């Protein structure tokens, strides 16, 4: 497994690799899900090559979306359910590129370029809203996502056609108003994946897509080491102390939201180019929930999330996603059970993570209060 041990354990002088209890205590969630995935894979009796293929594809497809969650967590804003807004910006750009008929990698890059300002403006707005709801950012970002979904539907169902001209029968609904429910993204479909896709041991590897995600990991890792990253961490630790230190807290939080939304927009474009078709009114809806669940499965919390947790999380969550319907079929003879089970896993892991976070927060505060009493 990946090396996620705390530097503190090294300082304590104990041998890290042998301290199993510590590893389990700090990485309990990913270990549990690893065990669950393996058990279910065995029950389902899946072909290993098929499973590996699926997981690699999904890793390439989803990791950028999950990475987009990291910055707001660092800034202390919790899990950003508002990445769906970035996904909507990406989808708008994908539709535009399809309409203009720009093909291949050029089309993909143009879509990225186009989604960036839209996502940035949306992220700026979202950041401003969240600054007015400090302490309840997560629920606010979730409702913000639903609200933005309403605006998105208003634009693509009623405004595109009569007000924003779009003269393309293939894109419009038969009535001439609004975009079709499914748009074939023929121009940018697989444009990144198919650049170089070697088959190693029966597993097709979309190298370029994976490299882009890896590049984003490097960029985020670098960003965290700059002054900006320090500010983000300081704000995440304690807003009041950061304010006293002379950091512009509100501005930093807005920047975190802008970055997150923009990365999510690109992430959705990568997702769409892999899938190849756009469900205009559904593709974005589940993005927030699945990405957050994946990050949490990787062992992240609402206050701390690392790049490795994001990657491990995507692998584990999507393994479970692939195997659970088949396991449900094998165990109960009803495939829907597995289907509902994975929905439960997604919701349940978020519920547990949020509850744990709130509970731990209370414990820390209580301990601090007790210590304060003792020192008095």
């Amino acid at each position: 497994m990946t090396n996620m041990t705390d530097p503190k354990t090294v300082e304590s002088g104990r041998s890290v690799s042998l301290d199993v209890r510590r590893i389990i205590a700090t990485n309990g969630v990913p270990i549990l899900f690893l065990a669950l995935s393996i058990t279910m894979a065995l029950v389902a009796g899946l072909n290993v090559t098929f499973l590996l293929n699926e997981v690699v594809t999904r890793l390439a497809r989803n990791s950028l979306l999950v990475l987009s969650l990291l910055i707001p967590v660092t800034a202390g804003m919790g899990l950003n359910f508002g990445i769906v807004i970035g996904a909507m910006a990406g989808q708008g750009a994908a539709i535009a590129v399809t309409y203009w008929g720009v093909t291949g990698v050029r089309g993909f890059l143009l879509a990225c370029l186009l989604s960036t300002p839209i996502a940035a403006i949306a992220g700026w707005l979202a950041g401003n809203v969240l600054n007015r709801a400090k302490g309840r950012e997560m629920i606010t970002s979730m409702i913000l996502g639903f609200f933005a979904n309403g605006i998105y539907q208003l634009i693509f169902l009623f405004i595109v056609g009569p007000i924003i001209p779009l003269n393309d029968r293939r894109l419009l609904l038969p009535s001439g108003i609004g975009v079709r429910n499914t748009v074939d993204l023929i121009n940018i479909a697989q444009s990144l994946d198919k650049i170089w896709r070697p088959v190693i041991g029966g597993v097709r590897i979309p190298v370029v897509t994976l490299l882009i995600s890896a590049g984003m990991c490097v960029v985020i890792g670098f960003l965290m080491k700059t002054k900006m990253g320090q500010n983000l961490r300081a704000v995440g630790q304690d807003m009041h102390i950061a304010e006293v230190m002379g950091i512009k807290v509100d501005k930093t939080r807005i920047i975190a939201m802008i970055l997150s939304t923009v990365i999510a927009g690109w992430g959705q474009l990568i997702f769409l180019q892999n899938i190849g078709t756009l469900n205009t009114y559904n593709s974005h809806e589940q993005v927030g929930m699945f990405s957050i669940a994946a990050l949490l499965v990787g062992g992240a919390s609402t206050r701390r999330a690392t790049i490795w947790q994001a990657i491990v999380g995507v692998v584990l969550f999507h393994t479970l996603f692939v195997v659970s319907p088949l396991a449900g079929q094998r165990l109960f003879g009803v495939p829907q059970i597995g289907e509902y089970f994975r929905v439960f896993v997604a919701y349940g892991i978020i519920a547990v993570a949020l509850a744990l976070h709130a509970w731990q927060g209370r414990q820390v505060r209580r301990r601090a209060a007790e210590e304060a009493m003792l020192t008095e």
Partner: protein
Amino acid sequence: MTLRLRRIVENIGIPRLIIAGFLLIIFITAYITDMSVPQLMTDSLVRVGMNGILVLAMVPTISCGVGLNFGLPLGVLSGLVGALISMERNLKGFSGLFAAIGFAIPIAVVVGYLYAKLLESVKGQEMMVGTYVGFSTVAVMCVFWLLAPFKNPELIWAIGGKGLRFTLTLGNHFGKVLNEFAVFQLFGVKISAGLLGFFLLFCLLIYFFYKTKLGIAMLAAGANPVFARSAGIDVRSMKAVGVVLSTVLAAIGIIIYAQSYGFLQLYMAPLMMAFPAVAAILIGGASLQKATISNVIIGTLLFQTLLTTALPVTSRVIQGDISEVARLIISNGMILYALTRSTGGK
């Protein structure tokens, strides 16, 4: 004069003025385009009675200090189980309805108590935890519906003979029993005294609950926990009472909703149930800290009338169904408005 006007606006609240204005425009448009205004009002009143108790379920959690109850699906699921037991036993008419409520209440009390225990340990994050506990319970119950030991052939899939159907028809059981009870006409508007009376009865019950010693203690615990504790009130158990009461109301609310709709919707249907109820009470002027019965009645009236009339009226003017989009924007916009203001929906 302007000061007085401003005071009036402040008292009513901008969101309510905007929505009332919307409604006025809709009704005028309906009148101009020769639509039957009494028919629109009839439909709206049915929807008010249908959703009222689910909105009322928000009051206890807000007033005991837990905030908006996004965990409403927990109560809804308890209500669904109660309704299913009543249907499994083939009870018809009013006895079926009251049996459903009777079976649902004990389940809701237990579920509500466990939920309250959980919320107690996640103080400060109740809304977020509640949302996802509700979501994940809906998913767990999907598995339960598939495996549940119900035998009545009306309830389970015809093919395979296992698992409950997605939507169950209530027609033979207790479908519309309240809706069709004591119906009278007023200026061409059909009013179901049974349905609306039931809703108002529950409003009255909750109103009197807050006049009892327990109710006042709960209000105090919600408004100022420190003061309440020093006055000898057990804040924790007051919160538990609030959450249990809310869950029970949600269970009754979904049974009333289903009988009015005529169908019992299982599986993923309860997933988003909390959001329209939350939006309605906020539109009625409630905040995250304070909610009254009048907030419930005003909010449900405005929100449900808007939802009911928007579709038929706007479809005359605009092509396509804009009401679903309007519902998304208005309800979530209202929740956002309340979340970003320290005073809430005012």
